[in-house]
């Protein structure tokens, strides 16, 4: 009897999560129907105009989609030279040592720093440096936002990569050493190829984080509605434009912002599904 109640509770909890997700999707779809109706799905996605003035009102998501992909991929690129060495440090070279658990907890700590704190750090510490580097006059923009994003996603990329690296059996690595390979050669020809799909999945998950990150990016990206074409440009990501403009939005504009939210949700969902799929394939093998 107790077992039945427990099972029922579990079932209810699982169902509640499903309903909640469905509810979120329902609201996103319902509230954004207006804008998709107005411009059509592709008309909304591929339109780079964002003009909220009542007489020339026009909304398109393209600048923000580009802004999002631009910052996220550039952040991913920036984070690789830091997260991959950290993963090798923790998952390979110092696997099982105290120093490795220390380093990995410090890296995990990076994940626990609130987004707003990253924003402040970017604003007061990094921005003057970016100005000094002569990237642009104000410091704000894709470049600054991407650097901060890169730091924010390092823990996601590195700890999962380290896990996949540490799962490689010692016997296989010893096989390589016994053939006269050095550590670097073993990593290059045995460990990295074996962990590669896991590492790719880790970076895809990190990309998912970067796509949806809001607060720090909103503070640093410059919040303009143009399509960014270089690292020097200011812009907006899908998340940052929503954060920035939802307060004074109503009518078609609100519907457009929610439409952007729906698109962002779909993009991150697809990214996460791809990562899950790769990891699942990996664990089967």
């Amino acid at each position, binding site marked *: 009897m107790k077992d039945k109640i427990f099972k029922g509770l579990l079932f209810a909890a699982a169902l509640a999560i499903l309903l909640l997700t469905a509810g979120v999707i329902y609201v996103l779809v319902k509230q954004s129907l207006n804008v998709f109706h107005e411009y059509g799905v592709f008309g909304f996605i591929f339109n780079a105009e964002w003009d909220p003035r009542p007489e020339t009102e026009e909304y398109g998501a393209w600048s923000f989609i580009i802004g999002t992909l631009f910052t996220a991929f550039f952040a991913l690129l920036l984070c690789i030279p830091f997260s991959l060495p950290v993963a090798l440090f923790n998952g390979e070279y110092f696997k099982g040592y105290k120093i490795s658990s220390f380093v990995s907890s410090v890296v995990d700590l990076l994940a626990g720093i609130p987004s707003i704190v990253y924003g402040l750090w970017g604003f007061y510490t990094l921005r003057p440096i970016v100005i000094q580097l002569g990237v642009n006059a104000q410091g704000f923009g894709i470049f600054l936002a991407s650097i901060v994003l890169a730091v924010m996603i390092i823990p996601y990329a590195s700890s999962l990569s380290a896990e996949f690296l540490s799962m490689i059996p010692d016997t*296989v690595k010893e*096989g390589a050493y*016994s*053939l006269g390979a050095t550590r670097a050669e073993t990593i290059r*020809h*045995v460990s990295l190829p074996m962990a*590669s799909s896991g590492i790719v999945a880790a970076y895809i998950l990190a990309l998912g984080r970067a796509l949806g990150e809001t607060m720090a990016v909103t503070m640093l990206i410059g919040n303009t509605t143009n399509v960014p074409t270089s690292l020097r440009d200011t812009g907006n990501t899908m998340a940052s434009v929503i954060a920035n403009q939802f307060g004074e939005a109503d009518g078609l504009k609100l519907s457009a912002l929610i439409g952007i939210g729906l698109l962002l949700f779909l993009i991150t969902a697809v990214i996460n599904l791809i990562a899950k799929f790769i990891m699942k394939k990996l664990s089967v093998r």
Partner: protein
Amino acid sequence: MENITENKLNNQNENSTNEPILQLRNVSVSYAPGKKAVNNVSADIYPNTITAIMGPSGCGKSTLLRAINRMHDLYPKIETTGDIYLKGQNIMEMNPMEVRRLAGMVFQTPNPFPTMSIYDNVLAGYRLNCIKLTREEKDEIVQRSLMAVALWDEVKDVMNRRGSFLSGGQQQRLCIARTLALKPEVLLMDEPTSALDPVSTNKIEELLLDLKKNFTILIVTHNMSQAARISDNSMFMYLGDLVEYAPTRQMFTKPQHKKTEEYLTGIFG
């Protein structure tokens, strides 16, 4: 056990009248300070012989074997002392990578590289050491090595499949081929058949008898009858000491030490 280090082997094998290929001198290995897993072992190994290293679990037989290709260097906590001469050269003073190419190792569980094809697995030693080969050289090495382990006919049409696609026994023969490809002086085998079925075990044993013509083999084994079947000489180790080292036939018929006799007759083990 006073005369443990006195292991001047009175060898009856006709191949081994020449100079020893491998000389162990006071080899000790400790996993932690003061805790010796191998204690002051000295022995001479003669070319083109199979030497079986026997003893109960934890006696240090694998540890001794792994000292010979400097495998312990990978683990900073393990300390190896003493001298090991391979063809007169002290391997303790050589580059460990070089030593490992000269003393190839085959492990307990077959460990082909799962991301490499069968073809690339055989060539792994060259790939890992970044040695460039022409297509003809590669083909030649792969064919020669796979023929040496009697795997060529079984895999020549599936060269591009992953190494892990093969059966356990085939994988182990692939691992032996991968070691042979580098033309080592000595083959070190750490219980190479313990994970295999009897048929595969039989094949590997036949293979070892065949490989003896060109290589010197040291094999750690749990299996006394295996030692009796294939080895020329046998070592019996107990608690890190080399208790007895003698021609296999002599050891199995007239063991010199009580411990050896007890082990061989199954009183402990």
